[in-house]
């Protein structure tokens, strides 16, 4: 782990420019847009609302995540992303405080320029917070790519993703900076995995600072 930390120090963690706006839609109970460079996602959160009897869970809320691609209908890839986002949200939401109700999160991909899953996770977190749902902690998504030279690139673009031999996305929580969810593709060694986790944990601190800034900006307008 010490060696991973050293590498982490020497690696310059560069994230693209981030942007976030909360409460931009009037109809949903919570909404957010999240932008990472040219990747952009719009999130709408409904709930706690009435739930269908077939989906009712007697001791917690039913969370449903729907991802709408930019073009066409949701396919297998969106389903797998939905599952990643849902399981991360379930880990941080205190869903037992709203039993027998439904929470619906709709994520619309506006543009994909790499690191889409991490952008989806970040938009989801901001929308949950905007809806005022109780959460035990915040979470963020960080994507990193390992290129052919073995270098780790955080927050890669589509071009960088294409050149890389492995892409790893982690969801990291805000209290202990532990990994809540991981989604990987490509081949990498155990050592590289540990390196990537360390890099992503480091990057998550930046993202959480950004979260705090953007929420502060929002509440500064409070009348």
């Amino acid at each position, binding site marked *: 782990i010490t060696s991973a930390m050293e590498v982490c120090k020497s690696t310059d963690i560069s994230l693209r420019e981030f942007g976030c706006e909360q*409460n931009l839609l009037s109809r949903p*109970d*919570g909404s957010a847009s999240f932008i990472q460079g040219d990747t952009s996602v719009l999130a709408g959160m409904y*709930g*706690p*609302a*009435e*739930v269908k009897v077939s989906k009712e869970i007697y001791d917690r809320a039913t969370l449903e995540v729907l991802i709408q691609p930019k073009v066409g209908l949701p396919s297998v890839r969106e389903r797998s992303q939905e599952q990643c986002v849902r399981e991360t949200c379930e880990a*941080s939401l*205190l869903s037992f*405080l*709203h*039993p*027998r*109700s*439904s929470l619906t999160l709709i994520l619309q991909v506006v543009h994909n320029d790499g690191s889409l899953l991490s952008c989806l996770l970040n938009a989801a977190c901001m929308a949950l*917070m*905007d*809806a*005022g*749902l*109780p*959460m*035990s*902690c*915040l979470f963020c998504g960080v994507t990193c790519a390992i290129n052919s030279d073995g270098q780790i690139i955080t927050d890669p673009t589509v071009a960088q993703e294409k050149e890389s031999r492995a892409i790893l996305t982690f969801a990291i*929580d*805000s*209290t202990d900076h532990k990994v809540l969810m991981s989604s990987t593709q490509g081949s990498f060694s155990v050592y590289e995995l540990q390196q990537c986790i360390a890099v992503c944990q480091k990057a998550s601190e930046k993202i959480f600072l950004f*979260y*705090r800034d953007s*929420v*502060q900006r929002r*509440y500064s*307008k*409070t*009348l």
Partner: protein
Amino acid sequence: STQTRALKYSSLRSTGLRVGQVLLPGDQFFCEAEETLSLSATARRDTAVCGPGLRRSGDRVLVCVGGLLRHKAPNVFWVQSHSKRYVPAKGECVIGIVTAKSGDVFKVDVGASELASLSYLSFEGATKRNRPNVQVGDLVYAQFLVANKDMEPELVCIDGAGRANGLGVFGSGGLMVKVSLGLVRRLLAPGSELMADLSGLFPSEMVLGLNGRVWVKSSSVQQTLILSNLLQSCETLSPDQRRALFHRVKQGTL
């Protein structure tokens, strides 16, 4: 031990939170000790009452909703957030829509995840013989008698003494609009400037439900519409913009 106590308090004060500060879920909440602390005084139990947005987790208090830290003397703390969806809470007064009559209860939509029940006996002067005149589609102003996460919420239109006390079915006329929960709380805050500005425009009646529904009635339909539109625009206006807008309305130039 008094020495260590004093030390503990000073360290708390240095890390203490500011009232009005933005807190995010997962942040730890510290209760700030009083400014002047006598070392010889007998140990007083410092208890803080935690309202919405704060949760006890083991021996710590954690924030579970993002928003601004609020404080009410002497020891009540809560987190104020901008939410639009209502979650029933005991004792709160809300505006509901009667959606069904089933036997001896009415089902009332209050904008929460479940319909609330309202017994026909919980109206002023109602008896088994003398049923209140409530139709499906009527608006009622009612108070939560039972509201917790595990049970069906229950409304009443009487106080503890059996008096209506302002609660009950709405008469004809008037308009109901939906605003955010934060705006209603701002209107209901004691000495609210917003409320003073609004009530200075036209003579009107206004009923505020904590579930974000507001009912307005003025002497004419036109004035009712103006008031309800102004109310909805107050959501995003700063105090200066609001005063400018209200001034123009008063002069009739809008």
